[in-house]
């Protein structure tokens, strides 16, 4: 984790002594990044009111799960994967297909089987399915590294997207799936926006905890060793392929959980949410926030979410271009980071 106890203590001390704060803040980019982003988020939430903050919070939570889980693979294990959105999509589509009750015959469009499962029954299925896919894919991908790994992970996303788009009997292709169920358990419904936000944040907390548990264990240390020198790690007795496969599968399952949440939150999904570009955006969030830090990924997601919403208030930018403009900014940020700070804002690992 990026905040260690001694840093936190000195931060607390600095609140009481202004001089100490100045000393701490000078040249400490990480502190500034934290302060600016969190202030930005708080100011934004207050200014825009709760309703807006709740929506943004849910978007943030879902993307943060994705970013934190991807960081396990990219930052800690050193596999630059652009294939994460594929697992996200598997989770989303499984939940969508299993929970949707939409009667498409009445809409005179292609029909798919409906199951009408509750959300909490469908989500584990999606997670397991993503895990199984990850085992299969990871076994093949395990031998690739560096730029070739990037290429094949591009391929995984493209293949997933095409499967979502073209298996019309299962996913209705470009028409998308409607009426995806909201989570409900034991009389509790997460249908309201606030309840859903809380659910998403709980999921995020669980993912962060699991990730922290992994990276702080001996297992996590081995992952970083694999990142630095795979062959040397092997010579010291570790079955590197198993470790890589394990973290890949865990990360894929987390992404699938995020996908299930996403499907249920929007109640409608189509393949356009799972395109290659989304995957690239996700990687750029992880790199922006910082490689090999969990908090960095969370912060990076905050920047990502706030960037879009912040730009809605630029007078010269029409609303439909906001997403694209954010993409331009992210791209430029990525270039600048690679030039000046290859570990990302709060990173612990330089590419």
């Amino acid at each position: 984790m990026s905040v260690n106890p001694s840093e936190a203590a000195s931060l607390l001390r600095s609140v009481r002594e202004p001089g100490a704060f100045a000393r701490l803040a000078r040249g400490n980019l990480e502190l500034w990044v934290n302060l600016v982003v969190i202030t930005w988020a708080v100011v934004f939430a207050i200014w825009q009111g709760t309703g807006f903050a709740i929506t943004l919070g849910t978007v943030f939570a879902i993307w943060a799960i994705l970013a934190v889980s991807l960081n396990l693979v990219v930052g800690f294990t050193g596999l630059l994967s652009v294939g994460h959105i594929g697992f996200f999509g598997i989770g989303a589509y499984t939940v969508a297909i299993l929970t949707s009750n939409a009667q498409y015959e009445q809409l005179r469009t292609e029909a798919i089987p409906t199951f009408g499962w509750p959300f909490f029954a469908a989500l584990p299925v999606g997670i397991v399915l993503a895990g199984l896919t990850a085992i299969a894919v990871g076994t093949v991908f395990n031998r690739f590294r560096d730029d070739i790994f990037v290429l094949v992970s591009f391929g995984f996303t493209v293949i997933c997207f095409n499967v979502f788009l073209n298996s019309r009997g299962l996913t209705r292709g470009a028409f998308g799936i409607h009426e995806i169920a909201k989570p409900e358990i034991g009389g509790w419904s997460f249908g309201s926006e606030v309840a859903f936000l809380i659910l998403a944040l709980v999921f995020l907390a669980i993912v962060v905890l699991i990730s922290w548990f992994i990276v702080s264990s001996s297992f996590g240390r081995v992952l970083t060793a694999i990142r630095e020198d795979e062959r040397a790690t092997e010579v010291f007795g570790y079955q590197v392929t198993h470790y890589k496969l394990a973290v890949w599968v865990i990360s894929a399952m987390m992404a699938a959980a995020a996908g299930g949440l996403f499907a249920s939150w929007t109640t409608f999904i189509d393949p356009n949410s799972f395109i290659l570009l989304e995957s690239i955006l996700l990687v750029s969030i992880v790199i922006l926030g910082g490689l090999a830090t969990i908090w960095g990924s969370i912060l990076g997601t905050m920047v990502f979410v706030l960037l879009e919403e912040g730009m809605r208030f630029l007078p010269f930018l029409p609303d439909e271009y906001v997403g694209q403009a954010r993409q331009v900014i992210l791209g430029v940020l990525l270039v600048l980071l690679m030039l000046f700070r290859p570990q990302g804002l709060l990173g612990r690992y330089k590419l």
Partner: protein
Amino acid sequence: MLRNAAYRERRGRILAASLATVAAAYVVWKITESPDQAVQFAFNGLSVGAVYALLALGFTLVYSTVWFFDLYYGAAAAMGAYGVFYLRTSETVGGSHVNNPYVSALFALVVAGVVAWVLYESFFIRLQSRFTHKSLYIAGGLLAAATGIYSGFVLTNPDNLHVLLSPAVGAVAAIAVGLVVNGVIQRLFSEASRTPVLVVSVVAGSLFGGYCGLLIAGAPESRLYLSWAVSCLVAGAVGVALYRGLYVSMRKRARSPLIMLVASLGVLLAITAATAIVFESAPRPLPTAFGSEPWTLWGSNIKGFNIFTIGVAIAGFLGLLLLLKCTSLGRTIRAIGDDEEVAKVVGINTTVVIAIVFFIGAVFAAAAGLLSGHDTAIQPRMGLLLLLKGWIASVVGGMGNLYGAVVGGFALGMVEQFGIWDLAGEWKDVISFVLLILFLSFWPRGLLPRG
């Protein structure tokens, strides 16, 4: 005695061979089943493969020189296509006017910057003994600014493209003809004194150049083809600018080639989104080029434009081969690819040579982008997919090998087209990535491994 490593290698080969056999058997079966359709699919495969081959050629050239994957080439392909769209909006179906002074100014600035840098690198050191630094800076700056303003004019006046570009075309033709005439005369009459030869070649060059210029100026239908050249050149200039502006300093410090890859991913992201802002993300058609009327041949439809595309790919390959094998520039490019440090020590200006390589690569990508754009339609995201196809083609053909790039490109096109015979057409991206993964697993060095 059991030979372990050899055994593993042989197992890989057996798997690869059996896969290839199955594929070949499938194709043969299909051909015997319906030969007419087979011709059609083969032709489609060739014309799609030509685009992939072009992409793979540029990609391979750059990769085998600097040894990192530059994803800007995706953006270059899209820029090639959108450049044509930008300049020829009025001819496209229902095209609104997208010509935007800011965009034109930006690209004019890039062109001016690249020209200034090229002038500096190629003339400054040679001339600094004869002129003062200040006068050189002023002259170079003025020249670059003039080029920038000129390209700005060209970009903002697409309707008068032929008139505006006629002097440039004339000048290029004049120089080319002048050089050729000069060379031929000197080869034929080796005893001739220099002055009359020079006069003859200058006169011949300027006559031909003037004729070409006038011809172009009076032919508005040439605007489409001029726009091809302009978009290729602009994409190339952006490639050079990116190389000089980003990669040069990055490569000095980078721990791994992934830094450049991620940076170029950022470039791709930014350019793709900017394209979508300027041109909207919906697919757009390009104006119809020549040869879009299909002919019927052996029961299949064949478009002249596709044959042209195949021709461009083959010409591009031969040109590149000629450049690399027969010119001194080609030799220096290969020297840098073998060992950049040694090349530097030997006194090669590696920055300039690599910039030329980036320029050529981007021009190839842009050409591939606009050719495929004429064949289908264009959209901002097209670059990413074209880039991946070019990347796959170069892996299939054998990374870092020009012959491999061409073979891989055509092979990929063929496999895609024959693959969708029984599947639906929308599965073709899946087919190419499955092919990639098969190749990487069983045949990682590709069809024609480098050296």
